[in-house]
């Protein structure tokens, strides 16, 4: 059995680690609440935007935007993968990457090549080793993401679709189910399929300024951007939730370790005292 002193230093060091994980847990918890609020705040925009797009789709415009055109043959697909900047958040990123890799493999088996757009430092570090072609990348967005920081990254992919370089565009993101569960999700961004919604079937004869093409261009581009932006904001909430859980279990494990070590320490201390007494007793008897 290890000596008293060694056990004592070990306990002290684990206690320090536990303090850190506790602090990180609490920071993550408060950041998660803020991130969830932000997540909710982004919803009205895309909701309103969907309404406007729905109205326009029913207002028979002759112009067909490139985002709405489905490419018959799929030679190259694009993936936008949202990940975190920092680690220590459990299996969050790995689960996302697994989902992404699976989707990529499916397409590769069909003979399609892969283009990647990576959001977050972890994704960049992971997919650097992967054979896919990285088109654009952005990282170190912080906890409060602004849409301005994403525009360029997304535009690179959207342009590739408009030019016909890629024939499909997918988004790999995390869905915030609740604090305990975050689910990776792969969804199609392009081509856009307007939803059939009975409520929006009302026919409006719009005046377009400057023209239908210009308005649709701006609208659809912003719509795709807002979807990606939402997923990034949601990912921050997921990251914080996952980190909170990971840190909580780390703190719990540290607590268990400490109580085990404390027991060992007490035993060692008592053994030492018993030994000392018996030594004294032995010495007295010898005199």
């Amino acid at each position, binding site marked *: 059995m290890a000596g008293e002193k060694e056990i004592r230093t070990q306990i002290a060091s684990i206690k320090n680690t536990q303090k850190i994980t506790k602090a990180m847990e609490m920071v993550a918890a408060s950041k998660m609440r803020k991130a969830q609020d932000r997540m909710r705040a982004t919803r009205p925009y895309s909701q309103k935007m969907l309404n406007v797009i729905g109205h326009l789709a029913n207002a028979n415009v002759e112009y067909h935007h490139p985002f709405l055109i489905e490419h018959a043959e799929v030679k190259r697909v694009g993936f936008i993968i949202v990940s975190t900047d920092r680690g220590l958040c459990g299996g969050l990123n790995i689960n996302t990457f697994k989902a992404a890799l699976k989707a990529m493999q499916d397409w590769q088996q069909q003979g399609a090549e892969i283009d990647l757009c990576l959001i977050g430092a972890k994704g960049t570090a992971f997919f650097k080793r992967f054979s896919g072609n*990285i088109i654009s*990348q952005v990282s170190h967005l912080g906890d409060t993401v602004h849409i301005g920081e994403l525009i360029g990254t997304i535009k690179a992919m959207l342009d590739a679709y408009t030019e016909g370089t890629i024939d499909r565009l997918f988004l790999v993101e995390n869905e915030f189910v609740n604090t305990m569960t975050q689910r990776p999700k792969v969804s199609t961004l392009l081509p856009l399929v307007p939803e059939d919604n009975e409520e929006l079937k009302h026919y409006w004869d719009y*005046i377009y300024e400057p023209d239908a093409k210009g308005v649709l261009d701006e609208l659809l581009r912003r719509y795709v951007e807002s979807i990606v932006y939402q997923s990034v904001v949601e990912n921050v909430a997921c990251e914080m939730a996952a980190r909170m859980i990971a840190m909580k279990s780390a703190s719990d494990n540290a607590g268990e370790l400490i109580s085990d070590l404390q027991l060992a320490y007490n035993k060692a201390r008592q053994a030492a005292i018993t030994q000392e007494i018996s030594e004294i007793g032995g010495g007295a008897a010898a005199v």
Partner: protein
Amino acid sequence: MAMTLHLDVVSAERELFSGTVSAVFAPARMGDVGIYPRHTPLVTTLRPGELKIEAEGKEDQYLYVSGGILEVQPHVVTVLSDTAIRAEDLDEAKALEAKQRAEDALRDQKGDLDAAKAQAELVRAAEQLRMIERMRKMRK
């Protein structure tokens, strides 16, 4: 009863305004527009500028929009406001920047986190400066 319309102003990051108003004035692409209830349906893009909101019995409200889209229906007006300054050349520059970053990330096998972070902060600061510059020009 005075006629009113419902106005929603939303940006990608949050809801800016939602309520009943009597008139809205917006900087549309082809010139400023004033919208009163029962305006003909209209969809237009916006220039950066001020959105003026008039409501009965309240002081006029001003919101700064850096562009976006305005949708008008007889009694519902929706403004999808941009939070970022948008311009074709600026967007283009950003796209190039993102591509450049991808190349840098590939070349830099070590993944120098600190350098990348410093650079990201630098870019952000430059962005803010540019925005302030534009706002200042607009004021004049």
